[in-house]
Protein backbone atom coordinates (compact mmCIF):
# COMPACT_ATOMS: atom_id res chain seq x y z
CA UNK A 1 0.00 0.00 0.00
CA UNK A 2 1.38 3.40 -0.96
CA UNK A 3 1.89 5.63 2.02
CA UNK A 4 0.13 8.97 2.24
CA UNK A 5 1.69 12.35 2.89
CA UNK A 6 -0.03 12.58 6.28
CA UNK A 7 2.55 12.55 9.04
CA UNK A 8 1.45 10.29 11.90
CA UNK A 9 4.63 10.35 14.01
CA UNK A 10 6.74 13.43 14.28
CA UNK A 11 9.77 14.12 16.48
CA UNK A 12 11.30 17.58 16.61
CA UNK A 13 14.59 18.34 18.31
CA UNK A 14 13.88 15.34 20.51
CA UNK A 15 16.25 14.20 23.24
CA UNK A 16 15.61 10.84 24.89
CA UNK A 17 17.28 9.00 27.73
CA UNK A 18 17.06 8.15 31.39
CA UNK A 19 19.00 11.06 32.90
CA UNK A 20 19.00 14.69 31.68
CA UNK A 21 22.77 14.91 31.88
CA UNK A 22 23.22 11.73 29.84
CA UNK A 23 20.82 11.71 26.87
CA UNK A 24 20.93 8.51 24.84
CA UNK A 25 19.82 10.32 21.66
CA UNK A 26 19.73 14.03 20.83
CA UNK A 27 18.45 16.25 18.00
CA UNK A 28 16.11 13.56 16.69
CA UNK A 29 14.12 14.87 13.72
CA UNK A 30 11.79 12.22 12.29
CA UNK A 31 8.55 12.31 10.31
CA UNK A 32 6.82 9.00 9.61
CA UNK A 33 3.91 8.94 7.16
CA UNK A 34 0.65 7.04 7.31
CA UNK A 35 0.96 3.56 5.84
CA UNK A 36 4.73 3.56 5.99
CA UNK A 37 6.89 0.84 7.52
CA UNK A 38 9.86 2.52 9.13
CA UNK A 39 12.75 0.61 10.67
CA UNK A 40 14.71 2.08 13.55
CA UNK A 41 18.11 0.61 12.91
CA UNK A 42 21.28 0.69 14.91
CA UNK A 43 23.73 -1.36 16.88
CA UNK A 44 23.33 -2.46 20.47
CA UNK A 45 23.12 0.56 22.77
CA UNK A 46 22.39 2.99 19.95
CA UNK A 47 19.14 4.10 21.57
CA UNK A 48 16.60 2.34 19.34
CA UNK A 49 14.56 0.87 22.17
CA UNK A 50 14.84 4.05 24.25
CA UNK A 51 13.42 6.08 21.36
CA UNK A 52 10.66 3.51 20.90
CA UNK A 53 9.75 3.76 24.60
CA UNK A 54 9.39 7.50 24.20
CA UNK A 55 7.23 7.08 21.08
CA UNK A 56 4.83 4.72 22.87
CA UNK A 57 4.41 6.92 25.92
CA UNK A 58 6.54 4.94 28.36
CA UNK A 59 9.48 7.32 28.74
CA UNK A 60 9.00 11.10 28.79
CA UNK A 61 11.47 12.91 26.55
CA UNK A 62 14.33 14.90 28.03
CA UNK A 63 13.59 17.66 25.57
CA UNK A 64 11.90 18.45 22.28
CA UNK A 65 8.55 17.39 20.96
CA UNK A 66 6.79 14.10 20.08
CA UNK A 67 3.57 14.11 18.10
CA UNK A 68 1.65 10.88 17.54
CA UNK A 69 -1.45 10.95 15.33
CA UNK A 70 -1.36 14.72 15.45
CA UNK A 71 -1.31 15.01 19.25
CA UNK A 72 1.56 16.12 21.48
CA UNK A 73 1.91 12.82 23.33
CA UNK A 74 3.38 14.17 26.56
CA UNK A 75 1.15 17.25 26.76
CA UNK A 76 -1.93 15.05 27.06
CA UNK A 77 -3.46 14.08 30.38
CA UNK A 78 -3.05 10.46 31.45
CA UNK A 79 -6.59 9.74 30.25
CA UNK A 80 -6.00 11.53 26.95
CA UNK A 81 -2.75 9.67 26.38
CA UNK A 82 -4.41 6.33 27.18
CA UNK A 83 -7.14 7.12 24.65
CA UNK A 84 -4.58 8.04 22.01
CA UNK A 85 -2.55 4.89 22.70
CA UNK A 86 -5.66 2.78 22.08
CA UNK A 87 -5.22 3.77 18.45
CA UNK A 88 -1.76 2.22 18.49
CA UNK A 89 -0.45 -1.28 19.22
CA UNK A 90 2.84 -2.49 20.59
CA UNK A 91 4.62 -5.76 19.92
CA UNK A 92 7.14 -6.27 22.71
CA UNK A 93 10.43 -8.04 22.18
CA UNK A 94 9.44 -11.05 24.30
CA UNK A 95 5.72 -10.78 23.67
CA UNK A 96 4.80 -9.55 27.17
CA UNK A 97 1.89 -11.97 27.25
CA UNK A 98 0.14 -12.60 30.55
CA UNK A 99 1.37 -16.03 31.55
CA UNK A 100 -1.63 -16.98 33.66
CA UNK A 101 -4.20 -16.10 30.99
CA UNK A 102 -5.10 -18.20 27.97
CA UNK A 103 -4.17 -17.03 24.50
CA UNK A 104 -7.84 -16.16 23.89
CA UNK A 105 -7.86 -13.98 27.02
CA UNK A 106 -4.55 -12.36 26.12
CA UNK A 107 -5.61 -11.38 22.62
CA UNK A 108 -9.13 -10.35 23.56
CA UNK A 109 -8.04 -8.21 26.52
CA UNK A 110 -8.12 -4.83 24.68
CA UNK A 111 -11.52 -5.70 23.17
CA UNK A 112 -13.01 -6.58 26.53
CA UNK A 113 -11.51 -3.47 28.16
CA UNK A 114 -12.27 -0.89 25.49
CA UNK A 115 -15.36 -2.09 23.60
CA UNK A 116 -18.80 -3.48 24.35
CA UNK A 117 -18.71 -6.00 21.52
CA UNK A 118 -20.76 -9.17 22.06
CA UNK A 119 -18.84 -12.29 23.08
CA UNK A 120 -19.35 -14.22 19.80
CA UNK A 121 -17.92 -11.28 17.84
CA UNK A 122 -14.95 -11.00 20.23
CA UNK A 123 -14.18 -14.69 19.85
CA UNK A 124 -14.50 -14.48 16.08
CA UNK A 125 -12.21 -11.44 15.95
CA UNK A 126 -9.61 -13.25 18.02
CA UNK A 127 -9.89 -16.33 15.82
CA UNK A 128 -9.53 -14.26 12.66
CA UNK A 129 -6.58 -12.25 13.94
CA UNK A 130 -4.82 -15.39 15.15
CA UNK A 131 -5.48 -17.05 11.80
CA UNK A 132 -4.13 -13.97 10.07
CA UNK A 133 -0.84 -14.30 11.93
CA UNK A 134 -0.76 -18.02 11.17
CA UNK A 135 -2.07 -19.54 14.39
CA UNK A 136 -5.18 -21.67 14.68
CA UNK A 137 -6.70 -23.74 17.43
CA UNK A 138 -4.45 -22.57 20.28
CA UNK A 139 -6.93 -20.21 21.93
CA UNK A 140 -7.30 -22.23 25.12
CA UNK A 141 -3.56 -22.76 25.65
CA UNK A 142 -1.37 -20.79 28.04
CA UNK A 143 1.51 -18.78 26.54
CA UNK A 144 3.97 -21.10 28.28
CA UNK A 145 2.55 -24.02 26.30
CA UNK A 146 3.37 -22.67 22.82
CA UNK A 147 6.66 -22.04 21.04
CA UNK A 148 8.58 -18.76 21.06
CA UNK A 149 7.58 -17.99 17.47
CA UNK A 150 3.93 -18.69 18.26
CA UNK A 151 4.13 -16.47 21.34
CA UNK A 152 5.44 -13.65 19.17
CA UNK A 153 2.57 -14.15 16.73
CA UNK A 154 0.05 -14.16 19.56
CA UNK A 155 1.55 -10.90 20.80
CA UNK A 156 1.24 -9.48 17.28
CA UNK A 157 -2.41 -10.57 17.12
CA UNK A 158 -2.99 -8.78 20.44
CA UNK A 159 -1.23 -5.65 19.18
CA UNK A 160 -3.39 -5.68 16.04
CA UNK A 161 -6.72 -6.70 17.56
CA UNK A 162 -8.08 -3.14 17.76
CA UNK A 163 -7.10 -2.36 14.15
CA UNK A 164 -4.57 0.21 15.35
CA UNK A 165 -3.41 2.98 13.08
CA UNK A 166 0.19 2.46 14.19
CA UNK A 167 1.97 -0.67 15.35
CA UNK A 168 5.28 -0.36 17.16
CA UNK A 169 7.45 -3.46 17.10
CA UNK A 170 10.46 -4.01 19.33
CA UNK A 171 12.81 -6.50 17.66
CA UNK A 172 10.01 -8.44 15.93
CA UNK A 173 12.27 -11.22 14.68
CA UNK A 174 14.66 -11.47 17.64
CA UNK A 175 15.13 -15.01 18.83
CA UNK A 176 13.29 -16.56 15.91
CA UNK A 177 14.73 -18.88 13.30
CA UNK A 178 15.11 -17.36 9.79
CA UNK A 179 12.06 -19.13 8.38
CA UNK A 180 9.79 -18.09 11.25
CA UNK A 181 11.31 -14.59 11.20
CA UNK A 182 10.60 -14.27 7.47
CA UNK A 183 7.05 -15.50 8.07
CA UNK A 184 6.55 -12.89 10.77
CA UNK A 185 7.89 -10.15 8.48
CA UNK A 186 5.44 -11.26 5.82
CA UNK A 187 2.62 -11.17 8.36
CA UNK A 188 3.56 -7.64 9.37
CA UNK A 189 3.60 -6.58 5.73
CA UNK A 190 0.22 -8.25 5.21
CA UNK A 191 -1.30 -6.43 8.16
CA UNK A 192 0.05 -3.18 6.81
CA UNK A 193 -1.47 -3.87 3.39
CA UNK A 194 -4.80 -5.02 4.79
CA UNK A 195 -5.41 -2.28 7.32
CA UNK A 196 -3.09 0.45 6.06
CA UNK A 197 -1.29 0.41 9.38
CA UNK A 198 1.81 2.46 9.93
CA UNK A 199 4.61 0.45 11.47
CA UNK A 200 7.70 1.41 13.37
CA UNK A 201 9.99 -1.53 13.95
CA UNK A 202 13.13 -1.52 16.04
CA UNK A 203 15.50 -4.08 14.65
CA UNK A 204 19.06 -4.87 13.76
CA UNK A 205 18.22 -7.79 11.48
CA UNK A 206 19.35 -6.73 8.01
CA UNK A 207 17.34 -9.42 6.22
CA UNK A 208 14.22 -8.29 8.03
CA UNK A 209 14.83 -4.68 7.06
CA UNK A 210 15.32 -5.53 3.39
CA UNK A 211 11.94 -7.27 3.13
CA UNK A 212 10.00 -5.09 5.52
CA UNK A 213 11.12 -1.49 5.64
CA UNK A 214 10.00 1.28 3.32
CA UNK A 215 12.44 3.57 5.05
CA UNK A 216 15.29 3.12 7.47
CA UNK A 217 16.18 5.49 10.29
CA UNK A 218 19.78 4.78 11.19
CA UNK A 219 20.85 5.60 14.74
CA UNK A 220 24.45 5.74 15.93
CA UNK A 221 26.64 7.80 18.24
CA UNK A 222 23.64 9.36 19.98
CA UNK A 223 22.23 10.87 16.77
CA UNK A 224 20.07 10.02 13.76
CA UNK A 225 22.82 9.36 11.25
CA UNK A 226 20.72 8.94 8.14
CA UNK A 227 17.19 8.36 6.87
CA UNK A 228 16.40 6.67 3.57
CA UNK A 229 15.63 3.43 1.79
CA UNK A 230 17.86 0.39 2.23
CA UNK A 231 19.26 0.93 -1.29
CA UNK A 232 20.06 4.57 -0.56
CA UNK A 233 21.72 3.97 2.79
CA UNK A 234 23.71 0.86 1.96
CA UNK A 235 25.78 2.81 -0.57
CA UNK A 236 26.58 5.79 1.69
CA UNK A 237 30.35 5.44 2.03
CA UNK A 238 30.47 8.99 3.37
CA UNK A 239 28.74 7.76 6.53
CA UNK A 240 31.18 5.16 7.90
CA UNK A 241 28.94 3.92 10.74
CA UNK A 242 26.03 3.41 8.35
CA UNK A 243 28.22 1.79 5.70
CA UNK A 244 29.83 -0.57 8.22
CA UNK A 245 26.43 -1.62 9.53
CA UNK A 246 24.97 -2.45 6.12
CA UNK A 247 28.11 -4.27 4.99
CA UNK A 248 28.72 -5.98 8.32
CA UNK A 249 32.20 -4.54 8.70
CA UNK A 250 33.32 -4.56 12.33
CA UNK A 251 35.33 -1.59 13.60
CA UNK A 252 39.07 -2.10 13.93
CA UNK A 253 39.77 -3.65 17.32
CA UNK A 254 41.55 -1.33 19.70
CA UNK A 255 43.73 -4.25 20.80
CA UNK A 256 46.50 -4.17 23.37
CA UNK A 257 49.78 -2.76 22.27
CA UNK A 258 52.57 -5.20 23.01
CA UNK A 259 55.00 -2.38 23.56
CA UNK A 260 52.85 -0.78 26.27
CA UNK A 261 52.37 -4.17 27.95
CA UNK A 262 56.09 -4.80 27.91
CA UNK A 263 56.75 -1.29 29.14
CA UNK A 264 54.45 -1.82 32.10
CA UNK A 265 56.02 -5.19 32.90
CA UNK A 266 59.58 -4.11 32.33
CA UNK A 267 62.00 -5.83 29.96
CA UNK A 268 63.58 -8.76 31.78
CA UNK A 269 66.21 -9.39 29.11
CA UNK A 270 67.65 -5.92 29.39
CA UNK A 271 67.62 -6.02 33.18
CA UNK A 272 69.24 -9.44 33.18
CA UNK A 273 71.73 -8.50 30.49
Amino acid at each position, binding site marked *: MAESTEVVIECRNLAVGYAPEEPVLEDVEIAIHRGEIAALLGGSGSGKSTLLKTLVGLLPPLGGDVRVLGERLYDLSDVGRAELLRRTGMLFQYGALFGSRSILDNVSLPLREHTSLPE*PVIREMVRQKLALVGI*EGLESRLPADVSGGQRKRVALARAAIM*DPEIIFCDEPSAGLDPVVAAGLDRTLR*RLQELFGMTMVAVTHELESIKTLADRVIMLASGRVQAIGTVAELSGREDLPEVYRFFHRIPPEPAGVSNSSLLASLGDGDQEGG
Partner: protein
Amino acid sequence: MTARVEHDRENATAILHLEGHLDFARTRAFHDQLEGLARQDDVRRLVLDFEGVGRLDSAGIAAISVASTRFAEAGKRVDIRNLEASHRAALDLMSAAGHQRTPDREAGAFERLGARAANAWGQLTALAELVVDAVYTMGLIAIRRRRLPKGALTEQAVRTGVDALFIIALLSFLLGLILAFQSAFHLAQFGANIYAANLVGLAMTREFGPMMTGIMLAGRSGSAIAAELATMTVQEEVDALRTMGIDPSRFLVAPRILALTIVQPALTLMSIFVGLLGGFLISTGFMDISASAYISQTLTALGMNDFVFGLVKSVVFAWIISVTACFTGLQIRGGASAVGEATTRAVVASIFLIIVADSVFATVSTLVSHG
Protein backbone atom coordinates in the same frame (compact mmCIF):
# COMPACT_ATOMS: atom_id res chain seq x y z
CA MET B 1 -24.46 3.09 10.85
CA THR B 2 -28.11 2.68 9.98
CA ALA B 3 -29.59 -0.42 8.39
CA ARG B 4 -32.95 -0.52 6.66
CA VAL B 5 -34.53 -3.96 6.31
CA GLU B 6 -36.52 -4.80 3.22
CA HIS B 7 -38.50 -8.06 3.28
CA ASP B 8 -39.14 -10.11 0.17
CA ARG B 9 -41.77 -12.44 1.67
CA GLU B 10 -42.27 -14.40 -1.51
CA ASN B 11 -38.63 -15.54 -1.53
CA ALA B 12 -38.28 -15.56 2.31
CA THR B 13 -35.48 -13.06 1.90
CA ALA B 14 -34.49 -10.08 4.03
CA ILE B 15 -32.37 -7.38 2.42
CA LEU B 16 -30.35 -5.26 4.82
CA HIS B 17 -29.40 -1.92 3.27
CA LEU B 18 -26.36 -0.79 5.25
CA GLU B 19 -25.49 2.88 5.54
CA GLY B 20 -22.39 4.42 7.17
CA HIS B 21 -19.37 2.88 8.84
CA LEU B 22 -19.30 -0.72 9.99
CA ASP B 23 -16.72 -0.43 12.73
CA PHE B 24 -16.02 -1.05 16.43
CA ALA B 25 -18.49 1.56 17.62
CA ARG B 26 -21.40 0.27 15.53
CA THR B 27 -20.82 -3.46 15.46
CA ARG B 28 -22.83 -4.33 18.56
CA ALA B 29 -26.07 -2.90 17.10
CA PHE B 30 -25.31 -4.54 13.75
CA HIS B 31 -24.71 -7.91 15.45
CA ASP B 32 -27.96 -7.66 17.43
CA GLN B 33 -29.88 -6.87 14.24
CA LEU B 34 -28.36 -9.88 12.47
CA GLU B 35 -29.18 -12.12 15.45
CA GLY B 36 -32.79 -10.95 15.30
CA LEU B 37 -33.01 -11.78 11.59
CA ALA B 38 -31.41 -15.20 12.17
CA ARG B 39 -34.20 -16.03 14.62
CA GLN B 40 -37.02 -15.12 12.21
CA ASP B 41 -38.51 -18.28 10.73
CA ASP B 42 -39.78 -16.48 7.64
CA VAL B 43 -36.25 -15.34 6.70
CA ARG B 44 -34.38 -18.08 4.87
CA ARG B 45 -31.91 -15.81 3.12
CA LEU B 46 -30.23 -12.58 4.16
CA VAL B 47 -28.77 -10.16 1.67
CA LEU B 48 -26.34 -7.56 3.00
CA ASP B 49 -26.34 -4.58 0.68
CA PHE B 50 -22.99 -2.83 1.06
CA GLU B 51 -23.74 0.05 -1.28
CA GLY B 52 -23.82 2.66 1.49
CA VAL B 53 -21.04 1.24 3.68
CA GLY B 54 -18.11 3.51 4.48
CA ARG B 55 -15.33 2.14 6.67
CA LEU B 56 -15.27 -1.59 7.37
CA ASP B 57 -13.00 -2.83 10.16
CA SER B 58 -12.28 -6.21 11.69
CA ALA B 59 -15.14 -5.94 14.20
CA GLY B 60 -17.62 -5.55 11.33
CA ILE B 61 -16.03 -8.41 9.43
CA ALA B 62 -16.19 -10.62 12.53
CA ALA B 63 -19.90 -9.80 13.00
CA ILE B 64 -20.61 -10.82 9.37
CA SER B 65 -18.64 -14.02 9.89
CA VAL B 66 -20.57 -14.86 13.08
CA ALA B 67 -23.89 -14.17 11.33
CA SER B 68 -22.89 -16.29 8.36
CA THR B 69 -22.15 -19.24 10.68
CA ARG B 70 -25.38 -18.70 12.63
CA PHE B 71 -27.47 -18.62 9.44
CA ALA B 72 -25.70 -21.70 8.05
CA GLU B 73 -26.39 -23.65 11.25
CA ALA B 74 -30.10 -22.85 10.80
CA GLY B 75 -29.99 -24.00 7.16
CA LYS B 76 -30.15 -20.40 5.91
CA ARG B 77 -27.72 -18.38 3.86
CA VAL B 78 -26.15 -14.92 3.78
CA ASP B 79 -25.25 -13.12 0.55
CA ILE B 80 -23.43 -9.85 0.08
CA ARG B 81 -23.92 -7.46 -2.80
CA ASN B 82 -22.55 -4.14 -4.03
CA LEU B 83 -19.15 -4.72 -2.44
CA GLU B 84 -16.55 -2.18 -3.37
CA ALA B 85 -13.00 -3.35 -4.04
CA SER B 86 -11.49 -2.41 -0.66
CA HIS B 87 -14.31 -4.11 1.27
CA ARG B 88 -13.99 -7.18 -0.92
CA ALA B 89 -10.23 -7.31 -0.31
CA ALA B 90 -10.68 -7.01 3.45
CA LEU B 91 -13.41 -9.68 3.55
CA ASP B 92 -11.39 -11.96 1.27
CA LEU B 93 -8.25 -11.68 3.36
CA MET B 94 -10.01 -12.18 6.66
CA SER B 95 -12.18 -15.04 5.48
CA ALA B 96 -9.14 -16.61 3.83
CA ALA B 97 -7.58 -16.56 7.26
CA GLY B 98 -9.02 -19.90 8.30
CA HIS B 99 -12.57 -21.12 8.63
CA GLN B 100 -14.69 -20.86 11.70
CA ARG B 101 -14.63 -24.04 13.68
CA THR B 102 -17.61 -25.48 15.44
CA PRO B 103 -17.19 -24.65 19.11
CA ASP B 104 -15.82 -27.39 21.32
CA ARG B 105 -18.48 -29.51 22.97
CA GLU B 106 -18.80 -28.72 26.68
CA ALA B 107 -17.79 -31.53 28.99
CA GLY B 108 -20.61 -33.24 30.92
CA ALA B 109 -20.79 -33.59 34.71
CA PHE B 110 -19.26 -37.10 34.75
CA GLU B 111 -16.56 -36.02 32.32
CA ARG B 112 -15.67 -33.07 34.56
CA LEU B 113 -15.71 -35.29 37.65
CA GLY B 114 -13.45 -37.78 35.88
CA ALA B 115 -11.10 -35.03 34.76
CA ARG B 116 -10.88 -33.70 38.33
CA ALA B 117 -10.27 -37.18 39.71
CA ALA B 118 -7.56 -37.77 37.11
CA ASN B 119 -6.01 -34.42 37.96
CA ALA B 120 -6.11 -35.19 41.71
CA TRP B 121 -4.54 -38.60 41.08
CA GLY B 122 -1.83 -36.94 38.97
CA GLN B 123 -1.11 -34.45 41.77
CA LEU B 124 -0.98 -37.24 44.35
CA THR B 125 1.42 -39.23 42.20
CA ALA B 126 3.62 -36.19 41.68
CA LEU B 127 3.64 -35.52 45.44
CA ALA B 128 4.57 -39.15 46.14
CA GLU B 129 7.36 -38.90 43.55
CA LEU B 130 8.71 -35.76 45.18
CA VAL B 131 8.69 -37.33 48.65
CA VAL B 132 10.33 -40.55 47.46
CA ASP B 133 12.88 -38.60 45.47
CA ALA B 134 13.67 -36.32 48.42
CA VAL B 135 14.02 -39.24 50.86
CA TYR B 136 16.22 -41.14 48.41
CA THR B 137 18.38 -38.05 47.79
CA MET B 138 18.76 -37.35 51.50
CA GLY B 139 19.62 -41.01 52.06
CA LEU B 140 22.40 -40.69 49.49
CA ILE B 141 23.56 -37.47 51.16
CA ALA B 142 23.57 -39.22 54.55
CA ILE B 143 25.83 -42.02 53.26
CA ARG B 144 27.96 -39.40 51.45
CA ARG B 145 27.21 -40.70 47.98
CA ARG B 146 25.95 -37.22 47.11
CA ARG B 147 26.55 -33.85 48.65
CA LEU B 148 24.44 -30.79 49.20
CA PRO B 149 25.35 -27.61 47.33
CA LYS B 150 28.03 -25.78 49.26
CA GLY B 151 26.59 -23.52 51.93
CA ALA B 152 22.98 -24.29 50.96
CA LEU B 153 22.04 -25.93 54.25
CA THR B 154 23.42 -23.08 56.34
CA GLU B 155 21.81 -20.48 54.11
CA GLN B 156 18.42 -22.16 54.31
CA ALA B 157 18.72 -22.77 58.06
CA VAL B 158 19.48 -19.10 58.65
CA ARG B 159 16.74 -17.92 56.33
CA THR B 160 14.01 -20.24 57.60
CA GLY B 161 15.07 -20.56 61.23
CA VAL B 162 17.36 -17.95 62.67
CA ASP B 163 15.47 -15.09 61.08
CA ALA B 164 12.25 -16.39 62.69
CA LEU B 165 13.81 -16.65 66.15
CA PHE B 166 12.63 -13.35 67.58
CA ILE B 167 9.02 -13.49 66.43
CA ILE B 168 8.55 -17.08 67.61
CA ALA B 169 10.16 -16.27 70.98
CA LEU B 170 7.92 -13.26 71.45
CA LEU B 171 4.73 -15.15 70.57
CA SER B 172 5.66 -18.11 72.75
CA PHE B 173 6.40 -15.84 75.69
CA LEU B 174 3.01 -14.18 75.29
CA LEU B 175 1.34 -17.57 74.95
CA GLY B 176 2.91 -18.83 78.19
CA LEU B 177 1.91 -15.62 79.88
CA ILE B 178 -1.72 -15.88 78.71
CA LEU B 179 -1.95 -19.56 79.69
CA ALA B 180 -0.69 -18.77 83.21
CA PHE B 181 -3.04 -15.82 83.62
CA GLN B 182 -6.12 -17.69 82.39
CA SER B 183 -5.48 -20.89 84.28
CA ALA B 184 -4.15 -19.50 87.56
CA PHE B 185 -7.12 -17.15 87.96
CA HIS B 186 -9.62 -20.04 87.77
CA LEU B 187 -7.46 -22.52 89.69
CA ALA B 188 -7.05 -20.00 92.52
CA GLN B 189 -10.77 -20.27 93.23
CA PHE B 190 -10.16 -23.88 94.32
CA GLY B 191 -6.86 -23.09 96.05
CA ALA B 192 -5.11 -25.01 93.29
CA ASN B 193 -3.20 -22.21 91.64
CA ILE B 194 0.07 -24.14 91.86
CA TYR B 195 -1.32 -26.43 89.16
CA ALA B 196 -0.94 -23.56 86.73
CA ALA B 197 2.65 -24.83 86.46
CA ASN B 198 1.37 -28.25 85.28
CA LEU B 199 -0.99 -26.69 82.78
CA VAL B 200 1.51 -24.27 81.28
CA GLY B 201 4.25 -26.92 81.23
CA LEU B 202 2.22 -29.65 79.56
CA ALA B 203 0.38 -27.34 77.18
CA MET B 204 3.55 -25.63 75.99
CA THR B 205 5.59 -28.83 75.69
CA ARG B 206 3.05 -31.14 74.07
CA GLU B 207 0.83 -28.74 72.13
CA PHE B 208 1.49 -25.04 71.84
CA GLY B 209 5.28 -25.08 71.43
CA PRO B 210 5.26 -27.38 68.38
CA MET B 211 1.98 -26.01 66.99
CA MET B 212 2.89 -22.33 67.35
CA THR B 213 6.30 -22.87 65.78
CA GLY B 214 4.73 -24.94 62.99
CA ILE B 215 2.11 -22.35 62.12
CA MET B 216 4.62 -19.51 62.25
CA LEU B 217 7.08 -21.34 60.03
CA ALA B 218 4.31 -22.35 57.61
CA GLY B 219 3.31 -18.72 57.23
CA ARG B 220 6.81 -17.33 57.18
CA SER B 221 9.20 -19.89 55.75
CA GLY B 222 6.76 -22.15 53.86
CA SER B 223 5.42 -19.22 51.88
CA ALA B 224 8.95 -17.98 51.14
CA ILE B 225 10.04 -21.42 49.89
CA ALA B 226 6.91 -21.80 47.72
CA ALA B 227 7.26 -18.32 46.23
CA GLU B 228 10.96 -18.75 45.52
CA LEU B 229 10.58 -22.16 43.86
CA ALA B 230 7.47 -21.05 41.95
CA THR B 231 9.32 -18.04 40.56
CA MET B 232 12.23 -20.26 39.62
CA THR B 233 9.84 -22.66 37.87
CA VAL B 234 8.10 -19.86 35.96
CA GLN B 235 11.41 -18.38 34.86
CA GLU B 236 12.61 -21.80 33.65
CA GLU B 237 15.43 -21.81 36.21
CA VAL B 238 14.42 -25.29 37.33
CA ASP B 239 14.51 -26.48 33.72
CA ALA B 240 17.91 -24.83 33.41
CA LEU B 241 19.15 -26.91 36.35
CA ARG B 242 17.90 -30.08 34.71
CA THR B 243 19.60 -29.22 31.41
CA MET B 244 22.85 -28.71 33.31
CA GLY B 245 22.46 -32.20 34.71
CA ILE B 246 21.75 -30.86 38.20
CA ASP B 247 19.02 -32.70 40.06
CA PRO B 248 16.52 -30.12 41.44
CA SER B 249 15.67 -32.57 44.19
CA ARG B 250 19.27 -32.43 45.49
CA PHE B 251 19.89 -28.79 44.65
CA LEU B 252 16.63 -27.22 45.78
CA VAL B 253 14.41 -29.61 47.71
CA ALA B 254 16.84 -31.48 49.97
CA PRO B 255 18.50 -28.37 51.51
CA ARG B 256 15.13 -26.89 52.34
CA ILE B 257 13.70 -30.05 53.90
CA LEU B 258 16.90 -30.72 55.85
CA ALA B 259 17.16 -27.12 57.03
CA LEU B 260 13.61 -27.13 58.39
CA THR B 261 14.10 -30.60 59.88
CA ILE B 262 17.03 -29.23 61.90
CA VAL B 263 15.68 -25.78 62.64
CA GLN B 264 12.10 -26.58 63.56
CA PRO B 265 12.83 -28.82 66.60
CA ALA B 266 15.38 -26.28 67.78
CA LEU B 267 12.86 -23.47 67.49
CA THR B 268 10.21 -25.63 69.12
CA LEU B 269 12.49 -26.30 72.08
CA MET B 270 13.20 -22.58 72.36
CA SER B 271 9.46 -21.86 72.12
CA ILE B 272 8.70 -24.32 74.94
CA PHE B 273 11.28 -22.80 77.29
CA VAL B 274 10.30 -19.21 76.51
CA GLY B 275 6.64 -20.14 77.03
CA LEU B 276 7.51 -21.72 80.36
CA LEU B 277 9.37 -18.55 81.28
CA GLY B 278 6.29 -16.46 80.47
CA GLY B 279 4.17 -18.70 82.72
CA PHE B 280 6.81 -18.57 85.45
CA LEU B 281 6.96 -14.77 85.48
CA ILE B 282 3.19 -14.35 85.69
CA SER B 283 2.68 -17.08 88.28
CA THR B 284 5.46 -15.88 90.56
CA GLY B 285 4.79 -12.19 90.01
CA PHE B 286 1.00 -12.05 90.28
CA MET B 287 -0.31 -15.34 91.59
CA ASP B 288 1.48 -15.73 94.92
CA ILE B 289 3.40 -18.80 93.84
CA SER B 290 7.02 -18.98 94.91
CA ALA B 291 9.68 -19.50 92.27
CA SER B 292 10.94 -22.72 93.84
CA ALA B 293 7.41 -24.14 94.14
CA TYR B 294 6.65 -23.31 90.51
CA ILE B 295 9.88 -24.86 89.21
CA SER B 296 9.48 -27.93 91.39
CA GLN B 297 5.86 -28.37 90.23
CA THR B 298 6.88 -27.98 86.60
CA LEU B 299 9.64 -30.57 86.95
CA THR B 300 7.19 -32.98 88.55
CA ALA B 301 4.60 -32.44 85.84
CA LEU B 302 6.92 -32.78 82.85
CA GLY B 303 8.70 -35.93 81.83
CA MET B 304 11.25 -36.54 79.13
CA ASN B 305 8.55 -38.28 77.08
CA ASP B 306 6.62 -34.97 76.86
CA PHE B 307 9.64 -33.26 75.32
CA VAL B 308 10.22 -36.18 72.95
CA PHE B 309 6.55 -36.08 72.00
CA GLY B 310 6.74 -32.34 71.24
CA LEU B 311 9.96 -32.66 69.28
CA VAL B 312 8.74 -35.62 67.20
CA LYS B 313 5.69 -33.56 66.31
CA SER B 314 7.90 -30.67 65.31
CA VAL B 315 9.91 -32.87 62.91
CA VAL B 316 6.67 -34.10 61.32
CA PHE B 317 5.47 -30.51 61.00
CA ALA B 318 8.80 -29.54 59.42
CA TRP B 319 8.31 -32.21 56.79
CA ILE B 320 4.72 -31.14 56.17
CA ILE B 321 5.77 -27.50 55.68
CA SER B 322 8.84 -28.11 53.54
CA VAL B 323 7.35 -30.84 51.33
CA THR B 324 4.12 -28.88 50.78
CA ALA B 325 6.03 -25.69 49.96
CA CYS B 326 8.46 -27.42 47.60
CA PHE B 327 5.66 -29.36 45.91
CA THR B 328 3.39 -26.37 45.29
CA GLY B 329 6.37 -24.28 44.18
CA LEU B 330 7.65 -26.79 41.67
CA GLN B 331 4.25 -27.89 40.33
CA ILE B 332 2.93 -24.53 39.17
CA ARG B 333 2.15 -23.58 35.59
CA GLY B 334 1.52 -20.08 34.34
CA GLY B 335 2.90 -16.67 35.19
CA ALA B 336 3.09 -14.13 37.96
CA SER B 337 -0.35 -14.80 39.42
CA ALA B 338 0.42 -18.53 39.61
CA VAL B 339 3.29 -17.67 41.98
CA GLY B 340 0.84 -15.95 44.32
CA GLU B 341 -1.58 -18.89 44.09
CA ALA B 342 1.20 -21.38 44.85
CA THR B 343 2.25 -19.37 47.90
CA THR B 344 -1.27 -19.13 49.27
CA ARG B 345 -1.91 -22.81 48.61
CA ALA B 346 1.33 -23.78 50.36
CA VAL B 347 0.47 -21.85 53.52
CA VAL B 348 -3.17 -22.93 53.71
CA ALA B 349 -2.37 -26.59 52.98
CA SER B 350 0.52 -26.62 55.48
CA ILE B 351 -1.54 -25.18 58.33
CA PHE B 352 -4.43 -27.53 57.56
CA LEU B 353 -2.13 -30.56 57.46
CA ILE B 354 -0.36 -29.48 60.66
CA ILE B 355 -3.68 -29.36 62.51
CA VAL B 356 -4.75 -32.70 61.04
CA ALA B 357 -1.42 -34.26 62.05
CA ASP B 358 -1.70 -32.71 65.51
CA SER B 359 -5.13 -34.21 66.02
CA VAL B 360 -3.78 -37.62 64.93
CA PHE B 361 -0.94 -37.25 67.45
CA ALA B 362 -3.38 -36.27 70.19
CA THR B 363 -5.68 -39.21 69.47
CA VAL B 364 -2.89 -41.78 69.21
CA SER B 365 -1.07 -40.56 72.33
CA THR B 366 -4.28 -40.56 74.35
CA LEU B 367 -5.19 -44.05 73.19
CA VAL B 368 -1.68 -45.34 73.92
CA SER B 369 -1.40 -43.80 77.39
CA HIS B 370 -4.97 -44.47 78.53
CA GLY B 371 -6.11 -47.26 76.25
